[in-house]
């Protein structure tokens, strides 16, 4: 009995030491979606739209699974949104996350979403928060940095490489025209993207994963008070394109002429 209880204690200690990762999951229209608006162009029309895990978040989730499997970590996924986002969270569970949290409120603007997420981070004591560089719906590009600011964690955006040893971090950031190698420490928030893992590392949930996901906890939390700092008031679609001008491959002088004299771009 004594032996077992010591092992238990060691196990508990070990559990306290292993990294706690929170992956923020944005529920976004599939990249092939046609984008339409309703209510006099004030609302995104979700009719017939397929929703997926935001691609930048999926790269991050896959990197989180690597930490879990290779170094030991717990991975929780979180989304701020209504009940309609739960299938997206279940998919993340099927890919291998241990637990999910949904903060039960409509995600209206980046700042208020970041405030909800920062609250989850503080309550859960996460060491590493992985979010996507931007979501492909509103392209705000602000949630990860704001979580870092609100929780006083270190922050690396456009993160394309991440190694963690204890609490020391080595990361690669994509910069305009190259990359930068950085060192920092936990707690850390990253804005991730392709490069964190390769496209070929992404996982399609298998049957076993999907079955297991059904048993995993999906906790619904009520939101804290957080004002929307920005409001979306109206949408517009780009004007239809004019007809293309075709130039014969045997007459490239004409192309140069058009680009120089008509389009004035060379």
């Amino acid at each position: 009995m004594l032996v077992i209880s010591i092992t238990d204690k060691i196990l508990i200690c070990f559990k306290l030491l292993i990294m706690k990762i929170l992956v923020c999951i944005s529920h976004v229209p599939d990249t092939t979606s046609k984008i339409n608006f309703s209510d006099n162009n004030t609302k995104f029309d979700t009719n017939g739209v397929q929703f997926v895990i935001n691609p930048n978040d999926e790269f991050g989730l896959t990197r989180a699974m690597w930490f879990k499997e290779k170094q030991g970590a717990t991975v929780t996924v979180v989304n701020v949104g209504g009940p309609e986002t739960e299938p997206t969270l279940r998919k993340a569970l099927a890919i291998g996350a241990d637990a999910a949290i949904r903060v039960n409120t409509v995600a209206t603007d980046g700042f208020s979403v970041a405030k909800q997420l920062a609250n989850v981070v503080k309550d859960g004591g996460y060491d590493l928060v992985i979010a996507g560089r931007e979501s492909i719906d509103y392209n705000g590009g602000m949630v990860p940095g704001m979580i870092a600011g609100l929780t006083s964690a270190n922050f690396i955006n456009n993160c394309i490489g991440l190694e963690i040893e204890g609490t020391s971090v080595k990361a690669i950031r994509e910069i305009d025209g190259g990359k930068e190698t950085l060192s920092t420490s936990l707690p850390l928030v990253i804005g991730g993207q392709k490069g964190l893992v390769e496209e070929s590392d992404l996982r399609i949930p298998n049957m076993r994963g999907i079955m297991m996901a059904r048993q995993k906890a999906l906790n619904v939390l009520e939101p804290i008070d957080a004002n929307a700092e920005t409001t979306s008031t109206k949408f517009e679609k780009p004007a239809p394109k004019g007809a293309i001008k075709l130039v014969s491959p045997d007459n490239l002088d004409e192309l140069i002429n058009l680009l120089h004299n008509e389009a004035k771009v060379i």
Partner: protein
Amino acid sequence: MSVLVYTESEQGKFKKVAFEVASYAKAVANQLGTTVTAIAMNVNDTSQLAMYGVDKVLNVTNTQLDNFNAKIYANIIKQAAEKESTKVVIIGSSANSKYLAPLLAVELNAGYASNVIEAPSNISPFTVKRTAFTNKAFEFTQINTDVKIVGVSNNSFGLVESSGSATAEAFSPSLSESGINIESVDKVTGKVSIADAEIVVSAGRGLKGPENWGMIEELASVLGAATACSKPVSDLGWRPHGEHVGQTGKPVAANLYIAIGISGAIQHLAGINASKVKVVINTDSEAPFFKAADYGVIGDAFEVVPRLVEKLKAFKAQQ
């Protein structure tokens, strides 16, 4: 109350985007009936900003700022905003500006709108037009906070010259803890980056293999353009990830985008659609790119591109 604009620089010189964001700040200042103050880091000569409507420049000189650090820079901009009692802060859309923006928003408790493409459509309530759904739509966003941050999309507003002079003021903010150290920077020198480029030459799977990129590089070099590629090309390792453009890669908002051997999938087009003029070179007249482009050549890239390079060389020699 002046509008504050963060004017980015590299090795002591302003980047072109600095003049674009300054032009934008001037437009906002006119709407609000106020002046423009610029904040610059380690710039040797700040006088050029006057040409784009800046009234006052706070130039910080400190060798510790030679390398960009988002947290320290955001904190300095915050100190400048407080000193100037600023209500509107204008920044750009470079990787660095987008990195510091959300940190600055938290410091100033300011609402932030990114990817803004026009001067505010209204100043009360403060409303801007931005791209959303990766260029498939535009969104009008109202910023409700007392202090507002506007991130201007590259190449969207353009340069607007105005006359006047700018006073330079030394500014010595305190430097915050950084928490992050730069170990090394690996930047291609002598090549224009996709973010800064006015012309982007991009190629896809139609090129068949990495060994065929010589002519793409050559076309880019004749035009002073950046090179880019479609997603499968970077996934296959033919080109570096940094060149991948589109919905899940880098956005492109160039004046001219030339797509060679790229089919024009919806995810590709979404990312490059903000470019003003698009040219497609493709063997398949049914390729979707022909519906999105302004000019097109139906033909084999292996014949068209070398010929175009020769013709452009002759054209450039005449200029």
